[in-house]
């Protein structure tokens, strides 16, 4: 496991999101923490797209440390799923109502499989 990229956005509103990418064999794990809202979603999307463009077998987006996932964040996940096509399997780790519920409510969990833990998302 190695940390290859880390970025932080600290917009004026005080909201922050931090994104770190880790490698686990053929899988990339994007570890996100903070709030994903209108302000921070572009940073989140940028990190997701550049991780997808490295064409890992699997991209796991770990939202365990995320306290808020707004609709702009959902769209960012959709964009990453689109960019991934058939090359990369995109999976999301989300357990809290703040993160899992918006994905389930909008039906996006049908397109992007949801897992409670990172271990499960990295498993078969």
């Amino acid at each position, binding site marked *: 496991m190695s940390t290859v990229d880390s970025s932080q956005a600290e917009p004026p509103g005080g909201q922050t999101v931090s994104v770190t990418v880790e490698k686990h064999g053929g899988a990339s794990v994007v570890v996100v923490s903070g709030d994903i809202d209108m302000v921070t979603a572009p940073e989140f999307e940028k990190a997701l797209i550049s991780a997808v463009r490295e064409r890992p077998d699997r991209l796991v987006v770990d939202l365990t440390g995320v306290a808020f996932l707004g*609709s702009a964040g*959902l*769209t960012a996940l*959709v964009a990453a799923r689109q960019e991934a096509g058939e090359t990369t399997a995109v999976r999301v780790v989300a357990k809290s109502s703040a993160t899992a519920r*918006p994905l389930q409510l*909008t*039906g*996006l969990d049908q*397109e992007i499989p949801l897992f409670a833990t990172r271990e499960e998302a990295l498993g078969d």
Partner: protein
Amino acid sequence: MSIATLLHVSSSESRPGTTVVHVVGEIDASTVPEMALALDSAWKSGPRAVVLDLSHVEFLGTAGLTEILRAIERADAAHATFRIVTGGRSVVRALDVLGSRLPTSPDLAHALSD
């Protein structure tokens, strides 16, 4: 900025408790605030249902998808119904990325029939 994209948004209460937001034109990052405003005021009236009529929309970009996802969440929070009238092929394709569980109708009559 060369050619401005145009969006025309109007709302009507097609029957008591149901607000239809009609959108005509292209929905992108520059025009989406107008649709967002119309949806906001539709929800403020405490409707039982909001129908977003996209049957006259020629382009639906990701900024529009974000507003649609927000509307789904808002409807759930308000215990109300939200439906999208899809119409044209470009809108159907754009919505396709959001998955098969979207509350869509092929035309306005269908959306108002529940």
